[in-house]
């Protein structure tokens, strides 16, 4: 197998999601893992990928690749895949990576399986796992031809350092005319202060078990200490305790942070479908029979009014010290 991982960067850092895919690829496909970095002034970045298991990193370093736009990247990758005989290309999902992967699929008539959470080799066949129907079913998917393209759900794999280093190889950048038609006018202008609930890596959410709107401050303080956003259940939004924009669930937002802390939330299905693909779920609830304990990784049967402020203190201490 000849595997290539699309290494996305922001600023002067490779994204953790991409590096996690490198780590995963090394365990599934074995040694021959290459990465590819596309951008302007990115050579130094590329070298860092060796530390996560990439034996080789292709670098397309060109001012035309500075803006994070998908189409020029499709041009470069299509060429590279053809030249190097690469049979498998892996992406960690992002706005940019999804567009690159799909553009490439069309360009090469290559199969793309998306929203995968795992990849395995079974009897010499590569098999991806894709959750479907609100994650109630896991579908085993595969490819009928090469190259195979796979787009992984963000946060599926953690990167782990190998201490290795990668051989760097330059890639020629030849772009199609239509690929350069879209032009970045202004880039990544952050508009809100804290992370928005859709993008937050950590969400601390409150439900009716908080007892009253005034107790949402407990949730807010914990969210702040963890650098996360605040979520709410329908019941408390309905009751006017917290704004609708923070509602998680069937008729609110669907979120998948790395960490979801549910405070005083029973875990009705209407809430569950909005947050069940979170990486780690911690639940604090007085009612030992609350359904949330059936799908929480760590469940605490206890009083949110005591546990949450104490946890906030401990998190602050840890971060401060």
């Amino acid at each position, binding site marked *: 197998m000849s595997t290539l991982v699309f290494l996305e960067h922001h600023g002067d850092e490779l994204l953790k999601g991409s590096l996690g895919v490198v780590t995963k690829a090394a365990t599934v496909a074995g040694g021959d893992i290459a990465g590819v970095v596309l951008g302007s002034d990115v050579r130094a970045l590329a070298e860092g990928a060796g530390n996560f298991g990439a034996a080789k990193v292709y670098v397309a370093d060109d001012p035309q690749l500075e803006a994070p736009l998908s189409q020029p990247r499709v041009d470069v990758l299509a060429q590279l895949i053809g030249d190097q005989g690469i049979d498998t290309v892996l992406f960690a999902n992002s706005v940019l990576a999804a567009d690159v992967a799909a553009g490439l699929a069309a360009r090469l008539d290559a199969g793309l399986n998306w929203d995968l959470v795992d990849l395995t080799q079974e009897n010499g066949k590569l098999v991806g796992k894709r959750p479907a129907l609100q994650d109630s079913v896991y579908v085993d998917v595969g490819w009928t031809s090469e190259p195979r393209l796979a787009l992984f759900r963000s946060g599926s794999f953690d990167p782990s350092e190998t201490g290795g280093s990668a051989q760097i190889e330059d890639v020629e950048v030849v772009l199609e005319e239509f690929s350069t038609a879209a032009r970045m006018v202004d880039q990544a202008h952050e508009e809100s202060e804290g992370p928005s609930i859709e993008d937050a890596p950590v969400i601390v959410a409150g439900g009716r078990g908080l007892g009253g709107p005034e107790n949402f401050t407990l949730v807010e303080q914990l969210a702040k200490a963890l650098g996360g956003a605040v979520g709410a259940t*329908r*019941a408390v*939004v*309905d009751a006017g305790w917290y704004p*609708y924009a923070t*509602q998680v669930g*069937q*008729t*609110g937002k669907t979120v998948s942070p790395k960490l979801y802390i549910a405070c005083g939330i029973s875990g*009705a*299905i*209407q809430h569950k*479908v909005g947050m069940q693909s979170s990486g780690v779920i911690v639940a604090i609830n007085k009612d030992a*029979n609350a*359904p949330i304990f*059936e799908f929480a990784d760590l469940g605490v049967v206890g009083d949110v009014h005591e546990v949450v402020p104490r946890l906030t203190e401990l998190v602050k201490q840890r971060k401060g010290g």
Partner: protein
Amino acid sequence: MTKPADVPPPFRIAEYIAPPSDPEDERIDVGVLVVGAGPAGLACAIRLGQLLEDAPEIRERLGEVPVAVLDKGKQAGSHLLSGAVVNPRALRRLFKGRKRIDEMPFFGPVEHESVYFLTEKSALRIPTPPTMKNDGNYVASLSRLGRWLAEQAEEGGAMILPETAAEKLLVADGRTRGVRTGDKGRGRDGEPLGNFEPGADVVARVTVLAEGTQGHLTGVALQRFGLAGESPQIWALGVKEVWQVARPLDRVIHTMGWPLRGAAKYREFGGSFVYPMGGDMLTLGMVVGLDYRDVELSVHDLLQELKTHPFVRRLLEGGERIEWGAKTIPEGGFLALPKHLHAPGLLICGDGAGLVNVPALKGIHYAIESGSLAAEAAFAALQRGQTPWTPGALSAYDDALAQSFVWKDLQEVRNMRQAFGRGFWVGGALAGMMTATKGRLPPGNMRTERDAEVEPIRTDRARAYPAADGKLTFDKLSSVFASGNKTRDDQPNHIVIRREVPRDIAELWTRMCPAQVYEPSESGVDITPSNCVQCGAITAKGGRLTPPEGGSGPEYTLT
């Protein structure tokens, strides 16, 4: 104990009756307006299509849209729910020479049927009561049948308008002019949101109310035109589930007895059904009369309890629940029928009129027949020289219905439901007598009281309800999810009740509601209207359901 009737809802019919208000050139003008895309309304639209096919000059006169059917559900069928074993008689007549039974979306004829009397641990097979025999009948999903009927109606030239609630009855000069549809895009306090879309006046020569059980405008019209019958209407609440199971079911099953209590003081009238849906699917449900007394009675939880019975559990083994829903059924029968089913410019059909045969557990074929007859009466009144909005112009509908099998059937069983107010055993004996004598004995008419007038009692019934395990038994919220309900949470409240009520009433509503809309609060009751699946139980027991924003509520597909 306080009765639900002691806390009447702050509902004034005057708010739901108005003259047309849109400027004349902005009104939507249709020939015949049917409210409700269920079996009655769609049969009416289909029959009209057939009649207009041969009468092009009338069709021409009715304008661009000769027949329109409004429905509040997302699609035709979204709000349809029934058992259902269908007597094909009315469908045969409606589609004579056009469609055969085997072209209709049935799961097949009833080949075997069994009736059981359940105790907590055992199931005793008993002879099928004659009224319940289903030879020649077919199993169907009413939601699916409704969608098929909607296709037939459209092919016949009717315009189906889903996602549209009929909110007000347009009445001017003593005649029904049509309906005003509900606004969309209002916030919780009624404030218009960014995508606010006001309702519209839909005016018609004839308006046919085929709204089904607890019809909102039907209730308004019965009161406005003084049509209510001698006995009040009463209802039952049915809750059902659709399952995919390991072993196909080969028969239609009905049960009586457990988990209901037979003693007269509880007044628990009802039973359960299990019907095969072809292949690996089946449906099962529990129906209980809303004249029950126990504050702690919950039909949803009784259905969950029923599934834990060894006899039922076995049928579901290795299966998975795929849909859930609830709806009320009018059970007052013949004696609760309105005095007339017409008023100037107006006809009333189907379940909305109360055309249900309780001992036979049937109403769909009456709905279809009444819809067809309403179409024929409307058509006759649309002939040149006729004015359908003069008093009595539509009385041919009542006459035709009185001549039909619908009337004969209902008259024979007129006292049967009432008899069961005396408990299961006395009721059963009386019912047997009525069946044997085709309704001649006992003579006279038995009285009923409104469901809301029944004085509640309290037992500790709820202690026995099984906890939800998410596999065999389910809580109410996950059931609402399985109804496909994804109603916008910030809609205005559509449930008219008093909020400051005694604790017993708050608990009665909480237990009664299968969709977890009500919750006792310090001062009375809190509500979550977006959970509502519009079953109508609240209207029977001290509240009033009005239509929410069109397109909201459950999205049934298999019920």
